[in-house]
């Protein structure tokens, strides 16, 4: 068995490509569990903390040191809450709607390229599959709004379906212009595979955001705007506009079912951020992959994951040290210190792997180091987007429905079409 594992770790392909169902399942499990935990715990906590600090307040502080355990308390509360299904609701559809959304946003993760071999499967039609499946999420929202048999959810559902369908067009065109860039190579054939798109950036030695300078950037910007609309976040959160529609399509939902909607929404946030990272920001590559690719630089970059954890651990330690000295805070201080120690231990392990994996190219440590590097850089870029999502939410008011549609159809669509054509023309001229 260990031999089997090490042999797999040495494989340069994804489990899907190797036709290895067992490893594919393990991957699916790891990714889903990781995403669910990240969303439930880390993302929830960070969003509430960051938002609170934007808004001159503290955010959760009581459950666990600095509210670190608050998400778990909330999850427990949501699970234990009474499961209310309105009498007039369509029972079955009401029941199945959150699952549709959840399924759609989690299925996307099967093709996200965390690394060259750190993906469940390298689908030939990866990006098409991603867009298609993530567009299924709207079905959950529409159906939830309809099944509630209530006016606010219905309006929310109508808004949401119109919004998502409109922004998908601009989003798709922006994606196509990135796919077009993958074909700017010797053979002239592009690819739809997510891994292939990142590899194309690797071969061409440039992130697509900088390719044909303003064009890639504009396409990326279109996508970055459309993806906020796709995930129903501020300033495009009309489907769940609290002040207008109380809670939009999930007004009648409560408890666990409501939390499934939230889980789906946040999972979708990570998913669309991953698309943006893979298509324009070089996926798993570290910054300046073409310039700084000497072994020394590789080593320096491979230290980053460990150093990040060192930094986080240091912040946690400082937090523990700055806790007020009343006996009331003693348990919290100890908890935070233990947490910091845990982070420090992870940092140590990562640093050891980075140092040990430096020399050889075939040793197990080297492969571990590579894998960690890939996943780290990918997740770091995704994290930037997540922070942007939170930042948007803290800063901007909400668009009105007609303005939203106007922007989608009259601004984003023409621009993305123009960018697509220009990319094609420039591509033909260059090649």
């Amino acid at each position, binding site marked *: 068995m260990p031999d089997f594992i090490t*042999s797999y770790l040495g494989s340069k392909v994804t489990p899907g490509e190797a036709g290895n*169902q067992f490893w594919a399942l393990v991957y699916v499990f790891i990714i889903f569990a990781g995403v669910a935990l990240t969303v439930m715990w880390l993302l929830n906590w960070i969003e509430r903390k960051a938002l609170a600090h934007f808004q001159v307040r503290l955010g959760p502080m009581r459950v666990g040191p600095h509210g670190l355990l608050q998400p778990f308390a909330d999850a427990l509360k949501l699970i234990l809450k009474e499961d209310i299904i309105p009498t007039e609701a369509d029972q079955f*559809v009401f029941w199945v709607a959150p699952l549709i959304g959840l399924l759609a946003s989690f299925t996307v993760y099967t093709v996200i390229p965390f690394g060259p071999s750190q993906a469940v499967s390298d689908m030939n039609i990866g990006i098409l*599959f991603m867009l*298609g499946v993530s567009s299924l999420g709207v079905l959950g929202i*529409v*159906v939830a*709004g309809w099944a509630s048999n209530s006016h606010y959810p219905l309006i929310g559902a109508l808004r949401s379906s119109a919004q998502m369908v409109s922004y998908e067009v601009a989003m798709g065109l922006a994606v196509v212009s990135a796919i077009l860039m993958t074909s700017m190579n010797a053979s002239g054939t592009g690819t739809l595979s997510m891994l292939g798109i990142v590899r194309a950036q690797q071969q061409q030695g440039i992130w697509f955001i900088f390719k044909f300078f303003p064009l890639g950037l504009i396409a990326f910007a279109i996508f970055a705007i459309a993806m906020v609309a796709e995930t129903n976040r501020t300033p495009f959160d009309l489907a769940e506009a609290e002040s207008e529609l109380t809670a939009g399509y999930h007004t009648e939902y409560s408890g666990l079912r409501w939390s499934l909607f939230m889980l789906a929404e946040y999972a979708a946030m990570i998913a669309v951020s991953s698309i943006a990272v893979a298509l324009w920001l070089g996926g798993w590559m570290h910054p300046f992959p073409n310039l700084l690719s000497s072994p020394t630089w590789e080593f320096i970059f491979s230290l980053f994951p460990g150093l990040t954890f060192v930094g986080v651990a240091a912040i946690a330690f400082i937090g523990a040290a700055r806790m007020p000295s009343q006996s009331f805070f003693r348990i919290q201080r100890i908890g935070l210190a233990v947490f910091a120690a845990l982070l420090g231990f992870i940092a140590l392990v990562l640093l050891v792997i980075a140092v040990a994996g430096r020399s050889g190219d075939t040793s197990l440590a080297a492969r571990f180091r590579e894998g960690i590097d890939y996943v780290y850089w990918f997740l770091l870029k995704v994290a930037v987007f997540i922070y942007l999502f939170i930042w948007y939410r803290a800063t901007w008011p909400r668009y009105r429905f007609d303005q939203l549609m106007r922007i989608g159809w009259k601004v984003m669509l023409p621009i993305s079409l123009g960018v697509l054509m220009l990319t094609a023309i420039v591509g033909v001229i260059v090649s």
Partner: protein
Amino acid sequence: MNPALNAAVNAGMAPVATPWFFYVLAGLAVASGVAVITRRNAVHSALALIVTLLSVAGLYLMLYAPFVAGVQIIVYAGGIMVLFLFVIMLVNIDRASKDRQFNRIWPVGLAAACALMALFAFAIVKGKALFPDRGLSLPESSNTQQIASMLYGEAGRMGQYTFAFEIASLLLLVAILGAVIMTKKKI
């Protein structure tokens, strides 16, 4: 691929496309197809149709047609079905779902359908020899490229279907304009 992995694959971790998978997808497709035409509530029908569409997309994948499967998901399930749901919500179906569901000539319709089914059964049983038991494996990895070169042609040559493709886009345009004009209250 390394030998250990090969061994593991041969030891029973067969590739995804097993017969078992086919039966599950086909069963799902047919069962939810039955649900589509029998449900009283149009939203339930639409949901059942989505399941059918997705299982058919799965069958496409088994037939080494990933691009068609992707198109099926993105256009059918993501686009057309949302349109259907949108319309079902717009037209108040409360009354429609309390109405009689089948029209008066349903026995005739059913008889016609049964005749058709008999015809199909006859054709399939008699013409078994016409459908040779061969699955010529198409190269899945370059499926999209091949479709693209057939649609758009390559190296300056017009593709076999370029003209048809353009006409299809025209058809879509006409359909969009027609839909907009018909649904506008005042033109």
